[in-house]
């Protein structure tokens, strides 16, 4: 046996000192309690998980437990956690960290997450896992605190970087690790030079990545697992996706765990989706047409017509801000067309969408979340609802964590409506609400999914109702009918969508739409372009199904 044995010396010295001084001595009861405490704190087995016993208040799902067990027992504490969105990767990572802390194998840990999620991680680790995690705010935190959460952008910069390299971290956790797919970036290099005794990389979309990206990610975690760069290129260079090569897939699966929604026995509550088509009033219609006419103006190239049209569908307030900006930028005389739009804005006295929203909110008579893309619309809606005696809480990105929490509580306990702009959605959970109004639709389906994900997530027990607003005979109607209804986007379960989009390799779906809707010279051309997009989506979907079947067969 050649194993280093370390004997505790501190007890001995103090004991001998007390013998010398004849005390002080503990009571028999305290002596017994100390021993009992040690019994409870000891870890009786190499295998198995201790953490669940420490977290009786936390509902841990079977697949999450299984992930933690496999990471500890089969992967030696180095893994890529790649569950589909919404299955609780944070819980899994927290479990693994807690397990190692209970076993005394991790004392110091560094958790790198996107800046917007730092405080959420701190909160969850503290409240759910009783892990005293601290947000890095001052540079002494690196040295003095054991469990630190920071954004990678802060961490990689001097002087932080050099202090971090000096710290004896036992565990590194990186959220949104797919951002590390390029090995030429500063972030990659930074992580590569961290001491990674135990390491978890969290990402939702690794499989669809190009295989070099998978190679980079795995090599960060376990260099050599997929061979070196040259060997890898030689063996798998022609492979297009990980799924198509069984050997590579098996190898990747040794370091990566991916649960799919379909594989978990979780029963998801249903989504009911209802398109709500709205008629413009004559004044609103005239305004919309006036904006549309800007296309023929000589200055048309300098702004995005699509943005103006979408704003016109949202609220005259949103449109006004942009138009005013354009006017301010004009040198010399203001173009007549813009003046014309301003006139039309002034002529509008009602907001048909807002009226519809009010009607709906009254009939629902329960808590409702309204999402809008525009700040001006948000303010208008808040004012409008207040005029009708409905209290609402505005919410947007850029709120500090404390304010976010407070607004969330305010909504939960004191207001009927929650009006959120896009970026505000990240990092809040509103499972207590089950009605969502998409006041205007984002053109990127993933963003829509994120919106819905705020209410339709683990823990939501009731069915969720989603109302998609669109004004008839506008860009909105096109988007709603062509994309959202034909591909039945809303009925898909969360997570399916990111697979499909990734397979399509359509990084910028929005641009395709914009091209079809704005740059088409005729209705016919637009139709063809939209159909093409549809066809691509359907193809990707079929590919996905085939992959799934084959997967099931093996």
């Amino acid at each position, binding site marked *: 046996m050649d194993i280093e044995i370390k004997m505790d010396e501190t007890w001995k010295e*103090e*004991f001998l000192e007390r*013998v010398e001084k004849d005390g002080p*001595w503990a009571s028999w009861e305290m*002596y017994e309690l100390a*021993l009992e405490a040690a019994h409870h704190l000891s870890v009786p087995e190499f295998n198995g998980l201790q953490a669940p016993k420490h977290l009786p208040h936390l509902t841990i799902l079977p697949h999450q437990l299984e992930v933690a067990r496999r990471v500890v027992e089969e992967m030696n504490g180095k893994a890529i956690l790649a569950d589909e969105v919404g299955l609780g990767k944070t819980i899994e990572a927290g479990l693994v960290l807690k397990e190692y802390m209970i076993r*005394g194998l991790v004392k110091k840990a560094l958790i790198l997450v996107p800046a917007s999620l730092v405080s959420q991680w701190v909160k969850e680790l503290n409240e759910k896992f009783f892990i005293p995690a601290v947000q890095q705010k001052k540079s002494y935190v690196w040295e003095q605190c054991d469990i630190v959460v920071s954004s990678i952008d802060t961490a990689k910069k001097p002087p932080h970087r050099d202090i971090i390299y000096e710290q004896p971290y036992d565990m590194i956790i990186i959220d949104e690790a797919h951002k590390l797919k390029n090995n030429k970036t500063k972030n990659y290099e930074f992580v590569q030079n961290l001491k990674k005794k135990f390491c978890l990389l969290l990402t939702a979309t690794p499989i669809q990545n190009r295989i070099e990206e998978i190679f980079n990610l795995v090599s960060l975690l376990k260099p050599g697992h997929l061979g070196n760069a040259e060997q890898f290129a030689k063996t798998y260079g022609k492979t297009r996706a990980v799924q198509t090569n069984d050997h590579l897939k098996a190898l990747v699966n040794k370091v990566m765990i991916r649960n799919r929604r379909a594989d978990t026995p979780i029963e998801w509550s249903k989504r009911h989706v209802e398109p709500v088509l709205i008629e413009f009033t004559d004044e609103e219609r005239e305004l919309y047409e006036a904006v549309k006419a800007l296309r023929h103006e000589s200055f048309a190239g300098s702004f995005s017509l699509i943005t103006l049209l979408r704003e016109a569908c949202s609220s005259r307030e949103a449109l006004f801000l942009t138009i005013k900006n354009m006017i301010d930028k004009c040198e010399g005389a203001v173009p007549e067309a813009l003046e014309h739009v301003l006139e039309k804005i002034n002529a509008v006295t009602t907001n048909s969408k807002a009226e519809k929203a009010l009607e709906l909110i009254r009939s629902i008579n329960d808590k409702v979340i309204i999402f809008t893309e525009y700040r001006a619309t948000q303010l208008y809606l808040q004012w409008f609802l207040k005029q009708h005696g409905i209290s609402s809480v505005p919410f947007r990105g850029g709120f500090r964590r404390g304010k976010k929490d407070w607004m969330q509580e305010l909504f939960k306990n004191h207001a009927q409506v929650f009006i959120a702009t896009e970026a505000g959605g990240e990092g809040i959970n509103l499972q207590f609400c089950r009605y969502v109004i998409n006041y205007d639709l984002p053109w990127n389906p993933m963003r829509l999914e994120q919106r819905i994900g705020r209410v339709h997530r683990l823990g939501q027990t009731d069915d969720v109702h989603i109302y998609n607003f669109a004004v008839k005979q506008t860009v909105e109607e096109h988007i709603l009918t062509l994309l959202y209804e034909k591909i039945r986007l809303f009925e898909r379960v969360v997570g399916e969508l990111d697979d499909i989009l990734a397979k399509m390799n359509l990084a910028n779906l929005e641009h395709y739409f914009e091209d079809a809707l704005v740059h088409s010279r005729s209705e016919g051309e637009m139709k063809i372009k939209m159909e093409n997009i549809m066809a691509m989506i359907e193809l990707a979907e079929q590919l996905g199904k085939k992959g799934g079947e084959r997967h099931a067969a093996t």
Partner: protein
Amino acid sequence: MQQHEIRRFVERYFTANGCTFLEANDNYMTIQLTAEMDKELMNRPFYWHYIERTGGVPQPMQLTLITRPNEQTNKLKGERLHFGAPRLHQLFRSAQKRGSFIRLYEEPESPLNGNAALHPWLGMNVVISYECDRKKDDLVSLGLHLISGTIIESFHERLRERRLTPKIPDYCFTISPLIKPRSGISRLEQYIRGRIAADDHTWADEARQRWADDLALLDEFYKDTEEKPECYYIEKEALEKQYKPRITVSIINGGLFYLMPRSS
């Protein structure tokens, strides 16, 4: 650890430290802390500093701990106590700190005819931790007869069968140890080393194998690199930290026990 065990532990802890229970039922307990326990547990050094400086009348806090939450306890301003609760772990640490060193004498069960000699024993409860990328603990209780050098295991179990008191009982006298405490500890350490050596260490061999496997991959990764980059050495060191088998022996508590000799 079951809720009733937690409850029992907490009751014993506070009783042993002289606190009183203002309320105690199956669902929760409210404890009036002593000044000493307030300082130990409530983390308010400035308050105590202030009181001691100004000579004010100290008001130790009360602590409400909920062991079985229900509608009644929801209204209370208390802390939920379960196995993972930071408060319980604080009590564990405090108990270990306050219950580390002991000296006790055996009290004869029946009146003695004449004087009785009490023999000195050194008792030690230790945790042996086997660590690599995984970990296991072994708790061992040892007793060393400080006259003959005999070592027995499960020593604490035996102590539990006896009546022990902090003061030397009437008509009893202690025999001075032939083995001094310092060398007694060394003998026990030696015994522990022997015990470890006799153990099955498949776990360590397996850990070394995992280490070797990962190291081989790493070398392969940088095989074509003439001058290895720094991250190669960082990773190599990390693998050692992750897998290298090591054993630590820590002492939970221990002390001197003067016991009546028994034939068994």
